[in-house]
């Protein structure tokens, strides 16, 4: 097996790495659904306050694709529907029952799956509300059920800070993984690319059937699906569709078909120096961060992030963990201003560049917090951005074309292959403190709307 080695990128050395110890987060009293998590879905509510839902009951559907439902991650009463500005549904709160009741879906054994028709698979996924785990590139939105992808990608090698180790998750319980992969293969009728790291050793990954197996090696973002797609099946244009599914969601797809119930468990990591204890936690979908972190003290002034520090969302303790997130990060928040900080030798300044003394010590005694460390300036192409993007793209020019809103040039320079998460490190290293990942997001939204 060939390994694709990528040199560009950077693994951020962050204190507060989660220990490989799984803790059960316990049973929450309430769950929340956040419609904004589902990019590409225009929500239309199917419940009202006071309604009772079972696990797997539809809560809303998408006005754009009426077959796509979002279903309840637990059984209970809808006690609150929070409406924001312009009548946007911000969250749906479910007060959980003592005893959980489930919507029933069809059950299949391992053998039966091989003869299932794609239509049957699709309808089960849509009805159960598990369809939104399948997302598509370009634009990283929930997959259009009518779309025909040329490939499906599953990454078993997340490289972002604190993200859960695939081997560890599969060692806990790999039930449904192979089934999920086979289902994706039958559903899409296209190759399923399973990408592992060089260290990935769990046999359900290394000996998986119905997949094209790859190994990627390199610093972050080598584990991002966007990078895998770029090197294996690059997206040519806006109609050239690729699907991708997260590793734990493959498990869920398999388990849905095996058990006939909507699986709502997931394993997440709790990371960051500001946390008292850093470890893996078994939680259920829709849990609020404060429930996930119960019994875990947060020290000092800090920022709570649903997701990893590079791509996550700043959150309050009452917010639910994002639908696609499998990391809770808590990092120090700081607004201290260093006197002549830019003149200091920089023993404690975290940097990927060779401009600080800390480089000689491999950033070991540095601390990192939420500060920008500088003021925003215009683009000066020092090459920092290029050094962390393992893609055959010209990011500086692409960014200029996005700012100029030139769709034609954006397309030629490969905007469809881009996703903000792959450019997060570019924002991280940029000396001009430009929000590069945000610019990519704006570019994609502009092209999606006007292209």
């Amino acid at each position, binding site marked *: 097996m060939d390994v694709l080695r990528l040199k560009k990128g950077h693994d*951020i050395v*962050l204190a507060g790495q989660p220990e490989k110890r799984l803790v059960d987060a316990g049973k929450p009293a309430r769950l929340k659904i956040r419609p904004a998590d589902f990019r590409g879905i225009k929500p239309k509510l199917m419940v009202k306050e006071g309604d009772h839902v079972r696990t797997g009951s539809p809560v809303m559907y998408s006005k754009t694709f009426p077959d796509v439902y979002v279903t309840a991650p637990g059984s209970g009463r809808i006690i609150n529907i929070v409406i924001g500005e312009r009548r946007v549904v911000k969250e749906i709160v479910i007060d959980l029952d003592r005893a959980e009741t489930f919507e029933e879906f069809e059950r299949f054994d391992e053998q039966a799956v091989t003869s299932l028709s794609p239509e049957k698979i699709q309808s089960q996924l849509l009805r159960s509300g598990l369809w939104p785990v399948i997302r598509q590139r370009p634009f990283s939105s929930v997959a259009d059920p009518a779309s025909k992808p040329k490939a499906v990608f599953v990454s078993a090698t997340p490289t972002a800070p604190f993200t859960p180790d695939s081997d560890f998750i599969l060692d806990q319980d790999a039930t449904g993984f192979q089934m999920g992969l086979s289902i994706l293969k039958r559903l899409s009728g296209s190759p399923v690319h399973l990408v592992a790291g060089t260290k990935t050793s769990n046999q359900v990954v290394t000996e998986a059937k119905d997949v094209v197996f790859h190994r990627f090696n390199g610093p972050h973002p080598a584990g991002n699906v966007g990078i895998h797609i770029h090197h294996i099946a*690059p997206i040519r244009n806006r109609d050239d569709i690729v699907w991708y599914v997260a590793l734990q969601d493959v498990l869920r797809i398999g388990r849905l078909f095996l058990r006939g119930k909507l699986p709502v468990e997931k394993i997440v990591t709790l990371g960051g120096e500001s946390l008292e204890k850093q470890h893996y936690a078994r939680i259920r979908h829709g849990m609020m961060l404060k429930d996930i972190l119960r019994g875990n003290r947060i020290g000092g002034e800090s*920022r709570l992030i649903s*997701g990893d*520090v*590079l*791509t*996550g969302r*700043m959150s309050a303790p009452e917010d639910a963990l994002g639908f696609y997130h499998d990391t809770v*990060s808590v*990092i120090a*928040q*700081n*607004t201290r*201003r260093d*006197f*002549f*900080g*830019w003149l200091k030798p920089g023993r404690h300044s*975290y*940097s*990927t560049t*060779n*401009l*600080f003394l800390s480089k000689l010590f491999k950033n070991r005694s540095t601390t990192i*917090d*939420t*500060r*920008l*460390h*500088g*003021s925003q*300036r*215009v*683009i*000066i*192409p*020092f*090459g*920092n951005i290029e050094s962390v993007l393992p893609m*055959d793209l*010209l990011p*500086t*020019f692409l960014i200029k074309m996005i700012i100029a809103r030139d769709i034609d040039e954006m397309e*030629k*320079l*490969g905007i469809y292959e881009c996703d*903000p998460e792959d450019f*997060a*490190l570019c*924002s*991280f*290293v940029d*000396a*001009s*403190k430009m*929000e590069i*990942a*945000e610019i990519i997001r704006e570019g994609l939204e502009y092209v999606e709307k006007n292209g």
Partner: protein
Amino acid sequence: MKGIRSFLDRLEPHVMSGGKWERYAPLYEMVDTIFYVPGTTTAVAPHIRDAVDMKRSMFTVIIALLPALFFGIYNTGYQADPSGGFLQHVLTGGAAVLPMILVSYTVGGLWEMLFAVVRRHDINEGFLVTGILFPMTLPPDMPLWMVAAGISFGVVIGKEVTGGTGYNVFNPALVARAFVFFAYPAEMTGDPVWSLAGELTAATPLAVASAVQDGDAGLLVSQAGYSFRDMFLGFVPGSVGGTSKLAVIAGAIVLVVTRIANWRIIAGGLIGLIAAAVSANMLAPASGNTMLSLSPINHLLAGGFAFGLVFMATDPVSAAQTDRGRWIYGVLIGVLCVMIRVLNQAFAEGIMLAILLGNAFAPMIDYFVLRRHIARRRVAYEKQ
């Protein structure tokens, strides 16, 4: 230190939008962030950021320039009166060079601030580099008012009219130098300008080589008393910062190790210069042009090629901005420098015009590199 902070904090409400000195916000931002790194936190993902910023990056260029500057000060004194002691050299040199730098920073800085206030953009740290680079490319006895005129032209026409730092086509310090070069030729060319002592004519090595027809350039240079050692160390007349190749190499190491300068441009420039000089040497027997016979080593050691290539051609904004383009751009500058030195006897020193021409071609080089890149992507797409 508390005093500065509390003074700045008291001032802050007045320069924020709606305050009475709102227009001067860029000036406040400059002073405020020089003293204190901003304490702003990230508003969107990624939530953490690298410690690098524009101040640190530009300041590194200043550090890289220091060896050349210190040696330039010493050498200015040394060239004025080689018999004096070290202290005398430094004092004489300092008295000539430091006022030039002061004038360049003050006058250029005022323009920079004026434009920042009128055009409502922040003051960019790039000026820290422009303001010191320009005087270092001048002969040491330049009248100060010409320094002021030069830097004004460089900042205003070279940079601000096209939108300020980051949008300039040409390197502003070189635009300033080109301006004084063409506007006040008497002060910039000819033999006497390179030394402080007016009555002493000090022809630069390149001027020596280009002065005679049908000669052997290398011989002429060494006969004039310019050994390779002196030219390498910098004990020759020339512009303030550009004589010592040793100091330039020290600066180049700083810039390349920190990746502030792209090594491809420097490597390309060296390759271009050597290739062009070797070709010129081959043509030499067929022509009466003495300069054709100047060896690549002499080309490298004489004049400001090394200084210009390391500190000015590598300006990331006015250079080509693709890796492949940077190679082409570097080679082009090396070749052009030799061509101008050799073929145009009016300009004994070719690097300034070579870099400016390189700047002019950089966007076109990038354009073609970009088209190639797009074509290659299309092929890759079709292959899948």
